[in-house]
């Protein structure tokens, strides 16, 4: 579906608040835009983004067409333990794109 860029610090101390930056390539077609023939291009957006930390949901976003193409989201979370952060983007077609990043907490 797409290509994603994720920025998670590789190491953190326990309890540290870390910043996570995510970007995924996607046109985020609004459904309000005409093509050359004057017909509306059908809507096709990512409507959901979820971040889980070792299986526990820490951040979720419901996106609407007013989010710019190639959705960029940056947020914070507390580094509690070493493990894997899983990022899931879900589109209007129900398909998901999953990306993972690991973090070592000392």
């Amino acid at each position: 579906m797409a290509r994603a860029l994720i920025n998670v610090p590789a190491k953190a101390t326990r309890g540290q608040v870390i910043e996570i930056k995510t970007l995924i390539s996607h046109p985020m077609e609004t459904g309000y835009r005409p093509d050359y023939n004057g017909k509306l291009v059908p809507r096709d957006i990512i409507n959901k983004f979820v971040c889980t930390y070792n299986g526990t949901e820490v951040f979720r976003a419901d996106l609407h067409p007013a989010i710019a193409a190639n959705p960029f989201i940056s947020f914070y979370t507390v580094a509690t333990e070493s493990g894997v952060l899983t990022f899931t983007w879900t589109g209007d077609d129900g398909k998901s794109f999953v990306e993972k990043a690991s973090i070592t907490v000392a």
Partner: protein
Amino acid sequence: MKCEARNATTRRRFLALAGGAMGAFGAASLLTVRPAVATPASMAAAIREVVGEAPVRPGKIKLDLPPLVENGNTVPLTVTVDSPMTAASYVKRLHIFNEKNPEPNIVTFHLGPRAGRANISTRIRLADTQSVIAIAELSDGSFWSESVDVIVTIAACTEESK
């Protein structure tokens, strides 16, 4: 379609907009005090849907948007809520609304005590010069809001697809 309708800018409309923009500086404090008053019906309805009958108070949120946007297709937005983000007191949800895009909703963020800091950045589309409103729902059930006026020179969603 809403985007096409705005191409027919009359002198009267332009003057009304310019006057509104000038007035906005003076009335900015007034606007933030009563965010739900000066907004079109669709946004008010969308806000009502998430807030219900609960009162929405101004404050606690900082909404960072450039005051003058050259390209409405990608507008950087940063929202910060003044909250300790502990298990006892945290931000549950953060909603962003707009007045004049085809749809009033922009995005809803779901947070929790695990977030550590209620600070989120993203990029949005704006179809017109308008105000953007952020509403935070805290763990104690209270709602707080902040409104920012943005002037957009090139609107999103008017250009044809390639």
